[in-house]
Each structure stands twice: as structure tokens, then as C-alpha cells.
């Protein structure tokens, strides 16, 4: 399949998923039974003409498909609704992006470095207790929910040992983000290290490595240059598609560590039961997830022609 065809196909799929996802959200949230205008009035029924003017002001008198198109139009103009306080959700989100991006990037780096490192050690020492220990340890950590790991780290590393701040981002990038990012990364370690291990063992057993060994390459450059580079493809693919999880993890972790990011905004909106804000933020995050996963696919298709097919 040529690159153009692959791109066209992927974009078409994105379009279908985009309409499907937005329509599901729209149907779940805005097409609920009940009359918003009547509930606005409370116990005293509004006069008929006031009701009608309110309905036409908020486009509630239009047919369902027209309302859905209005909603899509709002989304495309980055309008994700209004909070109860009257602020627009996107302006609330705008100031919080840097924190979430910094957190997600740090977590991603941890996952990459620790996961690949552990996987490489397990592959080189395969069959020994080190290998088994890494496997068991990472699976154990991934079985515990993120918030349990988070709160435990807060208790032990933050309060008992005073190693890290337990809440807030006032101490700036490395220190305030270290613990939360590590907590998010912990969950992905099992998958990353296992993928790295398997594909490294595959390349360690391959003929070209045997040939390189026979040529007398020093073990350091053998592992670094020849084994690692060829076995990184599945791991990097996994890490690239991991974004949806990072965003979900950020919600919980930003809540626990009180980092003022998008996730924290979502967390507090859920806790204070601000339905429209919750839906607005989550919709924005879901759309970001969709767009990035398509971009990852396209980059991958450009790099590796084998993935261009179905």
C-alpha cells in the first residue's frame, strides 16, 4: 500500500470515529430526557413567550441533527462549554496545559528509561532470578491501582522520609514532578520491560548478532548498537500509543498530588459535581487522544512500510 493511500484511509477512519465519538457524547449528555428551560425556572412556571425566547436563544427549538451540528461547530471552534461559574471551559484549561504536558512528558521519559533499562537487564540475564524478579516486580506494581501507589508513595517518601514535596507544583519542575510522574510510569513498566525483553531476546538469538560476536565486537557496542536499536520498534510503538493511559493517569495523579493541571481541573469538577465542566474537559482530552493516535500511526507508517496495511 502506498503512503498516500495509507494516509487517506487512516484519515477516513479518524473521521468516522470522530463523528461516532462526538455523537455518543452528545447523545449521552445533551439529549437526556427533561426540559432544561423548565428546570431553569424552578417552582414558578415561566410565561409561554419567555420559554419560547429562551428555547430559541439556546437553539433548543431546532431539530436534533441541527443541534448536533451546532455542537460540532462549537467543538471545532474549541468551545467546550461553560462552567457553573460562567467561565468558558477552554479558558479554564488554557492556563493549566503546561503542568499537564510537563507531567506527562516526565512520566513518559521515566517509562521509557526505566522500562527499557529493566527489560534490557532481564533479557541479558534471562532465566536467572534477576529476570524473574524484574518480571514479578513489574507485574506486581501494575496490578495495584494508580491511586493506591500514589497515596502510598506520598505517605512513605513524602511524609515519613521527607524526600519529596507531597502536594502542589510550587517547587518547580524536577522536584515537584518527580514523584507524580514516577507513579504514573510505574503502571506501564510491566508492559514496556516485557516488550523490550522479548524483542531483545529475539535479536540476541538472531544470526547477525552471532556474526557480530564472531567478528569480535566488544559486548558494549554489541548490545548498544546492534541489539538495542533493532529491538526498540515494538517498545516505541507501545510507548507512542500509551498517551490515552497517560491522560487518564494524569487525572488521578494530579488529583492526589494537587498539581494544578488539566487532570486536577477534571478531578475537582467531578468531586464538586459540575457535570458540564466534566464533560467539556473529558471531550477535549478525548479529541486530543484521537488526533495524536492518528499522528502516531502516520509517523509509524512513514517509518515502517509493513504497518501500512489493514
Amino acid at each position: 500500500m502506498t503512503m498516500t493511500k495509507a494516509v487517506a484511509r487512516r484519515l477516513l477512519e479518524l473521521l468516522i470515529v470522530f463523528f461516532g465519538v462526538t455523537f455518543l457524547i452528545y447523545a449521552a449528555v445533551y439529549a437526556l430526557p427533561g426540559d432544561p428551560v423548565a428546570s431553569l425556572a424552578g417552582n414558578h412556571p415561566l410565561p409561554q413567550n419567555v420559554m419560547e425566547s429562551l428555547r430559541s436563544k439556546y437553539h433548543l427549538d431546532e431539530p436534533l441533527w441541527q443541534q448536533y451540528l451546532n455542537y460540532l461547530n462549537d467543538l471545532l471552534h474549541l468551545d467546550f462549554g461553560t462552567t457553573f461559574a460562567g467561565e468558558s471551559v477552554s479558558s479554564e484549561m488554557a492556563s493549566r496545559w503546561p503542568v499537564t504536558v510537563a507531567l506527562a512528558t516526565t512520566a513518559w521519559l521515566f517509562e521509557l528509561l526505566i522500562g527499557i533499562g529493566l527489560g534490557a537487564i532481564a533479557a541479558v540475564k534471562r532465566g536467572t532470578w534477576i529476570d524473574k524478579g524484574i518480571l514479578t516486580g513489574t507485574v506486581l506494581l501494575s496490578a495495584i491501582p494508580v491511586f493506591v501507589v500514589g497515596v502510598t508513595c506520598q505517605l512513605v517518601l513524602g511524609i515519613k522520609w521527607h524526600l519529596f514535596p507531597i502536594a502542589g507544583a510550587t517547587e518547580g519542575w524536577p522536584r515537584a514532578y518527580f514523584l507524580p510522574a514516577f507513579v504514573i510510569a510505574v503502571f506501564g513498566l510491566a508492559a514496556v520491560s516485557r516488550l523490550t525483553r522479548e524483542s531483545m531476546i529475539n535479536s540476541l538469538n538472531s544470526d547477525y548478532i552471532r556474526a557480530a560476536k564472531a567478528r569480535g565486537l566488544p559486548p558494549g557496542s554489541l548490545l548498544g548498537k546492534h541489539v538495542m536499536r533493532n529491538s526498540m520498534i515494538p517498545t516505541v510503538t507501545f510507548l507512542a500509543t500509551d498517551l490515552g493511559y497517560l491522560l487518564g493517569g494524569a487525572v488521578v495523579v494530579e488529583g492526589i498530588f494537587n498539581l494544578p493541571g488539566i487532570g486536577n481541573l477534571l478531578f475537582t469538577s467531578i468531586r464538586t459535581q459540575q457535570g458540564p465542566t466534566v464533560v467539556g474537559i473529558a471531550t477535549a482530552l478525548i479529541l486530543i487522544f484521537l488526533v495524536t493516535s492518528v499522528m502516531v500511526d502516520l509517523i509509524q507508517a512513514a517509518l515502517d512500510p509493513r504497518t501500512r496495511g489493514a
Partner: protein
Amino acid sequence: MTALLDPAEALDLRLPPRTLVRTLRRKPGFMIPATVLLVLFIVSLFPGWAAGFFGHADPRACDLLNSAAAPSPGHPFGRDVQGCDVYANVIYGTRTSIAIGFLTTTLAALTAAIAGTIAGSVPGLVDSFFSRIMDICLGFPFLLGAIVMLSTIRQRNVVSVSVILAIFAWPMMARLVRSSVRSVRALDYVAAGRLMGISAWRLSTRYVLANSIAPLVVVATTTVGAIIVAESSLTYLGAGLQPPTISWGLQLARAQSSFQLHPHLLIFPATFLAITVLSIITLGDSLRAALDPRQEHA
């Protein structure tokens, strides 16, 4: 029967049941989690009996004078902020978590088996239709999708939370069933069955689905664990179950504000949660290894 009609040759996934049981029984990686889960299962069937071990069976019998009391005889896990017995609450929470895990997975696996078989059996328009629906449901990151849907419903109890989680859990499994149905349908014994004049329904259920179900069983096992984690995370965030339901997620959410002073409120529900999920994941792993020996040890 000739080798032509024998599906085991081509699939490698179907060992005779007795061999499977014998293989599994020798594996500590299967027996230990299976025993733990059996105990948890019995506990969740008879929570009143299990909670009564230390003489305080009622999770809602609370004594505010003993708020957040440390573990003591009669209250091995201590009491929570409202003075309720933590042990009894953890036991009743087991029932909630296991119920949600199994209900969601059953709903999702049934939907997946039906949709996956139809999509895998009828190529063309029907297949694309089902595949696009799967794509759309997978377009939601799990936690965020569940947050949106859960924030729109009024009654958040075990059943409604399970249904919402199932909406986002079935497409993964359906994709799996679809691809294994497709590969089984290409086998000779299915063609032979069709030539023998077996009805499409019987062919799909007895010949194709029965032989493509093994991967689904493995994935469904680990899904139970993932669902229990997802439920407790959502409940912890405040988007999942609501009081008066008793659940580990709610206990942990309440524990967070006072865990610096009373760590026992956090430790016991968290330990139960972790042990349950770990057992399920280990069980799924050893099932996978037993059903598909090729994957063991790369």
C-alpha cells in the same frame, strides 16, 4: 475422524481438557491465585458469615466514640472515621468489586462473542459496520470515556456502572473473537461441515465459535482484574459508585483525607484490592501459558 476434520492440529489452542487440568494443577502460578480467588469468591457469596469472624458482622453498625480506632481484638483492621468496623467493610467491599468485575466481563464477553462472530462470519458491509462500531468505542480512552458516560447518569449503582464499563470493554474482546473466527472459518473442517449441509447457526456456534473461544477466555480473565481496578479508580475520583454502596474505592477515597494520621484506613482495603487484582492477572497469565505453550519462553 481424519486429520482433515480435526481442529486441534491447526490451532494448538485446544488441548484435551484432562491434560489442561493436569498441566494447570502442577503450576503454582495457577493454583495459588486460583485458591485465593476461590476464597474471595466464597467470601463475596456469604459476606455476612465471613464478616462475623471477629464478632462484628454489621458494616453499618458504627460507634462514633471509637472514631478511627487502631486495630484491636474484635476489630482486627480497626475502625474508620465514623467508627465502623473496617474488616466488615472490606469484606462487603469484596462482594461489590467481584460483582462488578464479573458482571461487566460477562456482559462484555457475551456482546463480544456475538458481535465478533457475526463480524468474522459475514464479510463486507456487516463486518465493516461492526468493526466501525468497535473503532468508535475504542476511540475513547477507557477512564475518560467512562467518566463522561458516568457523569450523565443519575443512579450510579453496581448494575449501571457495570453496563457503562462494559460499553468500553467489549470492543477489545470483539476484535479478538473476530480475528480468531476468521482464521477458524478458513480451516478445512469448517468447509467440510458446510459441505455436509450443517446449518449456518450450528456451524457458527458448535464448529467456529467453540474453537475460537480460548483466546477470549484468557483475555476475559485479565479483564476482570482491569475492571476492578477501573471501578475503584473511578469511585475514588468520585465518578463511580456512591454511598450507601460499600466498596473499596469509596473506603479508599474516604481514607485519603486522614491517612497521615490513620494509615490503617488505607492499608487494609488497598491490600485486598491489590491481592485480588494480582491473583486475577497471574491466573490469566498461567491460563495463557497453558493454552498456548508456544508463547512460553521466547
